């Protein structure tokens, strides 16, 4: 054999021209290109954040129906109850006054309450123009000049659209008074319902698939189906929710069947419908995450338990689940933070465009933070964009804290 394989060498090192410097140069150039692409991705994130912050703060030109300095020589906040009542009586129509008196007599109202009324009804500030943060900082002169020329009556002031008042005030048509309290509560309600339904079912399905399911056609179909569901666009879930929870089961989701319906939400477009839709949406993600966590539990643990004569469920309940729980929880929190930002399915099943009353239960009408951002963004008036930016910051803050919890959980689990 060796005689056969020996052939004379036709080629030698001389037949190669490795052109190494050229190849090295190509390598360097592409390394830069690849790095640049990565930098571009990072820049996109930075641009996104800067853009939001840019919108959430900045100069605003505010006009007053009655300038506050004409009402009193001292700041309005420092006025006493009686002084404020005097101002109200001087400036409000008798009809309006009678309505407020009927709600709660003016003399029994607190100073803050009265101050609010004075600002809202008498001073009535109105934003006539606003500038982004970057413009306000870097083109300050220009902003000041434009404001002086075009809005001579307006007061120019630096505004943070994100304030504690913004967080605690309900929705309003007046940008100076609008807030996101109803939206935050709506988000919490819907996400809670989604979690309550999807978590037990999702973990149950994951246990079934990992611990019970034999490799047969039915179980393979279930698995493939779950993977496919995870890729269905969220808006399709919205349509499913509209058809099933709002229309078909409207009697139940509106509370009519239980005699609990709120008159404004009798059509089934309620927090419950929204929560259940989001639950369906997040279910496949929870299942897949939980499956991964359960799969990570070493098989020896199961063998040890089964070897002691435990049943399969005892093994799962006492050994597998406790070990997998941190992983399951981490995955669930991440899934939930995804759901908290969902907008499209909620628009489809009919989020309310304008509600100012806090949701009182699962049968209330709903709006959520992303819905609020969507509506403010699509308003033609620019000033609502600033509110959208502020609300985006709130939403991102909520998501980041959820993620932080997940990371903490993961690290703590790893430390063990």
């Amino acid at each position: 054999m060796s005689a056969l394989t020996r052939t004379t060498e036709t080629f030698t090192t001389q037949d190669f021209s490795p052109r190494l410097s050229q190849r090295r140069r190509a390598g360097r150039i592409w390394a830069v290109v690849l790095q640049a692409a990565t930098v571009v991705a990072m820049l996109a994130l930075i641009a996104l954040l800067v853009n939001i912050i840019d919108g959430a703060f900045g100069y605003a030109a505010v006009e007053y129906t009655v300038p506050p300095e004409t009402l009193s020589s001292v700041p309005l906040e420092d006025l006493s109850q009686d002084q404020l009542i005097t101002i109200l009586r001087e400036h409000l129509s008798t009809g309006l006054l009678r309505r407020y008196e009927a709600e709660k007599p003016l003399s029994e109202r607190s100073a803050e309450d009265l101050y609010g009324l004075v600002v809202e009804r008498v001073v009535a500030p109105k934003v006539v123009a606003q500038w982004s943060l970057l413009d306000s900082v870097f083109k300050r002169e220009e902003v000041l000049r434009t404001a002086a020329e075009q809005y001579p009556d307006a007061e120019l002031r630096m505004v943070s659209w994100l304030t504690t008042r913004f967080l605690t005030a309900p929705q309003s048509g007046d940008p100076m008074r609008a807030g996101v309290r109803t939206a935050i509560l709506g988000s919490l309600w819907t996400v809670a319902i989604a979690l309550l339904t999807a978590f037990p079912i999702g973990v149950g399905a994951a246990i079934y698939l990992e611990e019970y399911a034999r490799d047969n056609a039915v179980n393979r179909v279930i698995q493939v189906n779950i993977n496919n569901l995870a890729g269905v666009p969220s808006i399709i879930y919205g349509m499913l929710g509209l058809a099933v929870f709002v229309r078909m089961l409207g009697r139940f989701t509106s509370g009519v069947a239980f005699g609990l319906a709120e008159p404004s939400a009798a059509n089934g477009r309620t927090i419950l419908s929204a929560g259940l839709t989001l639950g369906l949406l997040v279910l496949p993600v929870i299942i897949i995450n939980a499956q991964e966590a359960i799969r990570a539990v070493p098989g020896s643990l199961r063998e040890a338990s089964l070897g002691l004569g435990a049943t399969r469920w005892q093994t799962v309940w006492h050994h597998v689940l406790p070990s997998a729980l941190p992983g399951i929880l981490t995955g669930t929190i991440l899934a939930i933070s995804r759901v908290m930002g969902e907008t499209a399915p909620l628009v489809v099943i009919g989020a309310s465009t304008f509600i100012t009353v806090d949701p009182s239960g699962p049968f209330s009408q709903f709006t959520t933070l992303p819905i609020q951002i969507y509506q403010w963004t699509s308003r033609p008036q620019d000033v609502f964009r600033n509110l959208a930016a502020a609300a985006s910051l709130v939403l991102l803050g909520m998501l980041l804290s959820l993620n932080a919890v997940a990371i903490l959980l993961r690290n703590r689990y790893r430390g063990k």
Partner: protein
Amino acid sequence: MSEQLAPTDNPYAIEAVGLHVYYDQFLAVKDVNLRIRRHKITAIIGPSGCGKSTVLRSFNRMNELVPTARTEGQVFFNGVDIYQPAVDPVRVRQRIGMVFQKPNPFPKSIYENVAWGARINGFRGDMDALVYESLQQAALWEEVKDKLHQSGLSLSGGQQQRLCIARTIAVKPDIILMDEPASALDPIATLRIEQLMQDLSSAYTIIIVTHNMQQAARVSDYTAFFSLDEQDRAGVLIEYDETDRLFTRPQSKITDDYITGRFG
């Protein structure tokens, strides 16, 4: 640089001088001084964990692919220290090829597996002829000549390993490093690889790491025995000699213990 790396009359293909290799703080190989003879087969043997592969990989700077690895000392290839800053490791590896423990053909056709290395290294001749010659030299031509365009992964383990050898010789290296090339193969495939090594030794310098003493005794002209240093658990060169002499009249007690099967 290419002039520097050109063959000389130096009888040694590789000379390691005071070679230390660290992984992070861990000293893996300590103070190796070794001269590998040109166009001979040199075997590196020793108990597992004594740094045989590390030494082999430091001969063509493959160790650098491990981010924590650090090399001290010198390795001369044709009289040039391959660790001096001006030397390009890519160039070194073209001239000092390597065959690995597990056959690792590219997921490409058999033809493309052989041609790939030559192509990236700027081969200017007739590629078909080069592929033919390389497969011939690797004693694989007869088996694959009708399926050159099938995937290299479709071959058996032994064939895959010979394909890897063909791929290595297609770039015309001076030295072929073999890291336990037959350990994943059955005895018949192993035998063919060993025959092939002897065929190739007339044209190439071959250094083989093996955990199999019989294999070392069968194929190699020289043998280097490595073992763990008692004090700092680093690999050290214990004895280096002609294979016949090392296996029959070892100078060191440790070598004697090892080759007679008393440890390792």
